């Protein structure tokens, strides 16, 4: 029984080590690549260079003029969107960038949900 417990602890330790290695292996992305108009299906996001942006989803009969605002930051691979509420307050969302180039933006949240956007003119 004790042996079994030790094995479990070992596994956990190893897992934590691997996990820690991942933290140190985060990619860095060029923040200047992000501003612009990105689309993923019916979901649209627009990033302004000044750290503001807005998003809308035409599937819900929302137009660009009716888009909701957010502020964004990109720190290495961590993309933080603070969605601004009209009633006051923010709803923070944190994603990890997987890809960011002139045509493609891919980010993923902590629960493994991934979003792929295509740059729009």
């Amino acid at each position, binding site marked *: 029984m004790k042996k079994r417990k030790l094995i479990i602890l070992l596994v*956990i330790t190893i*897992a*934590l080590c691997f996990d820690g290695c991942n933290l140190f292996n985060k990619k860095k992305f060029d923040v200047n690549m992000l501003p612009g108009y990105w689309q993923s299906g019916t*979901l649209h996001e627009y990033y302004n260079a000044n750290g503001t942006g807005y998003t*809308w*989803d035409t*599937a*819900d*009969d*929302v137009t660009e003029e*009716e888009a*909701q605002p957010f502020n964004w930051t990109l720190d290495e691979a961590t993309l933080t969107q603070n*969605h601004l*509420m*009209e*009633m*006051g*307050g*923010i*709803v*923070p*969302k*944190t994603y990890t960038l997987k890809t960011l180039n002139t045509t493609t933006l891919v980010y993923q949240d902590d*629960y493994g949900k991934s979003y792929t956007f295509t740059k729009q003119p």
Partner: protein
Amino acid sequence: MKKGLKITFITLGSLLGLVIIALVFALWSLLSPARLTKLVNKEAPNFLNCKFHIEKVDLTFFKTFPHIGLDLHELVLINPVYGAPTDTLLHVKHCATSLNIRELVKDKHVAIRDFTLQNGTANLFANPVGQTNFTNIFRLPKDTTSSEFSYTINLEQVKADNIHVSYIDLQSKRRARLNDLDLIVKGTYDNNDMEGDVKLGAKTLSFVTLDDNPLLAKGHDLDLHFDGSLLQMDSLLGTLNINIADLVLHVGDDPYVDTLDVTLASDLKVGLSNQTIDLRETALSLGDYKLAVEGNARRDTATGDLSMNLNYRTETWPLQEVLDLLPRALVGSALDSLHIDGRAGLAGTVMGHYNELQSPFITSDITLDDGTFSMEGFPLVFDRIHTLCHVDMDLNNETNVTIKELDAYNGRNHITAQGTVKDLLGKMLCDLAINGDLHVQDYKDFLPSKLTRCNARAKADIKTVFDHNQITSGAYSKINATGTLLFSDVDVLYDDSLALKSPSMDVAIEFPVKEQPYKIGEWAHIHLKAPHLSGSKVDVGNLEASTADIDAYVNNLLDSTLALKLGTHYQFQTVNGQMDTLLATMQNSTGTFVMRDNNKLSLQYAGDGIAATVGKTVAARTGKISFTANSHYNEHGKNMLMRWNPDVKLKLAQGNASFQKLEKPLEIPSLDIDFTLKRSNIKNSRIKIGNSECNLSGEITNIDKYYENRGLLTANLDLTSDYLDLNQIMDLISGLNAPDSLLAEKPENSESDPFMVPYGINLHVKTTIKKALFEEAEIRNVGGYISIKDGQLVLDQMGLTSDAARMQLTALYKSPRKNHLFLGLDFHLLDIKIDKLIAMIPEVDTILPMLKSFAGNAEFHFAVETYLKSNYDLKYSTLRGAAAINGHNLVVLDNETYQNISKKLRFNKKTENRIDSLSAEATIFKNEIDVYPFAVSIDKYQAILSGRHNLDMTYNYNISLLKPIRLGLDIIGTDKLKFKVGKAKYADFYKPERQNVVEKNVMQLKQQINQALRSNVREQ
């Protein structure tokens, strides 16, 4: 003329003297012409004061048959006077007189009984200073002792044959002429009294005054016969018959008589010296028109004035012909525009003086039958006129008529009248009492031009005063009239737009008015009573009234330059009105209505009640109601309300209104409002709507700016209520005044019609509500503010209490379009039972599904916003929110999930499932609900829960067990949860010194969320 007669007699007398002289010489020279001529020429100076010439004197038998007489040939009397056209006074070819030879021879006595003048002229003249050529030219010798003869004159006959008489009097400025005068005078002369018979004829005669405005009389075939006496050579008494053909009488250029045959038969008495005349049984005919006259006249010898006192009576004359004979100089142009005919008879008097300045006063009783009357400029023609009237003609002042009876027809209209007409030949001021059976449409010319249709039958009883000028100039507005008109079958159309109908109307009129109660320039007072009235105005509506009593004053309706002004006190038993889709019935209405001009209206109303409907959308009814309304019409107003710009003070009781969109009616037990477009006050007004009842008071401003799109309709109201059903109220005001494009938008779900927030309104309601129903929740003690401002509905820090909790709610609802509705909530539930919270807000279970595992009281703070579809479904892509729950001593319910968790985490079976404290935060983003790590302590166990679940109910949670061992449990899945043991995700979450970067960030976000949510809680 009388002076001329006197002169004639004097002349004749003088001639007799000459005859006597001739006879004496005839006798003296033994009747030979030479001796007679010599004798007469010798004796003549004894009798004549003028030069004379007698060519020859001889005896005649035939001229003086049966007596022998003397015939003086070519007798000339010459008496020059300064200024006279000739010095010849008389020139006749023959002057003959008879002689009694026996007396002449035997007694040396010359008796002259007659003489005759033949073929000659007489020129009588008086110069401006009064010298004449015919006075004092004859004389009887005072001493006849030197003469061989004695003389007596006892004329029995004087004849003149073919004598032309000219008479010129420059002092009295007159001239007369008789041509071919034939005269026979028979009678006796005794002691200056003459009695006899005079027949005078002349081929032509003329008389003219020599002044600036000469009187000219002329005629021919004069035939004068006088049978009477001349007493003391002064008083003429007898019967006079005169016929003159083609008499012309002019004064200046004005004809008085134009070529009329005139006859006169009179029993008269004439005073020559005092120039008087008394007429008895005098018949005068001018042409075919006969006139009987009696009375007297006198000419003032000093002034020339003629004073008269005469009675006259005519036969029945054809009026038009007689009026044509009236001298224009007398009647002026007064009759020019009149066309009068009929059979007329006159009787009356002529009294007073006649001279250049004065005319006598003439009275006349006139009877007219079968008469007709029309006047230029007067649109009516009357016929079948019968009248009996009295005329007082005073040409010095005015001529007045008293109409004793007048009965006439104007077409099918029958009129009777009595009254007076003053100044008939001038202003023609009529004061009449008129009764008529009239068809009003026949008198359209007298009615306002804008009265395009006026059909009615009227029985009129009118007293009116008007004058000629008012009629001919159309100044009907200045006519005075009072009386009653009983109208029937009234059908009136004014200005092609305002119509009025009534089966019968009793109208009393008075104009001009005696008082001016409304200060609108009152001209006419009209009191109307009608059992039924119906009216309509194009583009406005219709009106039906029963038992109407309208006491109205109007300004001058007939002056087209004036706008209609109206002041009225009205009373109606019932009034039914229709204006566009508005239908209204008013009971026992009374009040006043004043229209100061088209733009200024004032209404006072009081009634037992009003029932009204607006299409199918609104039906309203009131109990007793009173209001005053003033309006200053502005034609530039954007809508009817803006145009009429009312100032209303309204009080009503027991009102209610049913709205199409409301199942329950709006009841108004009492309402007291002062309303203007700029500012309106609602005072102590009580309203019931459906299940709701409230008292509403406060102020509404900027209604005008709201309609002009210049500002927001602003309302600051206090709403107090024992109970409000907010669901019904929201239905009532849904979509009010939203843009057309918004209203036209079809909702996604065609059955849905969401609540659209009114635009252009700044409504601020302070609420004090004891109990309210919202959705399914009954809430109490609602206090706070409800605001609607330009498309936004805000519930600002509303304090509420329900069975579940004390609540505080700030909500924002916007409806930019039907399928894109914004809802934001800032909701705080204090001391709430968790199960009640989930029952009241089921969405809480969606946000924090683990919450239903707990029981007990908690504090819940929740801020969320999202856009909604038209059916209020969430647009999840727009959902943003944050929530925090804080609880103590919560019980974890023993359900399947708990059993699974306790089994996996090896809870002691004796462990009490109570949680000392709970403090959890979550954010909502789209369909993702992220629960931030929060610690839970149960018995000896301590764990940190965190994770995500999606609104599709997929879970990804982690429980980090910290005590008694560190262990992680992942709970993943949907309905079939998978439990997987792993590492503790947040092992050092509550150990700041050991927190990693992620844990620090998360803790910081938790604190931000919690603080942000709590910061909105208001002290209660």
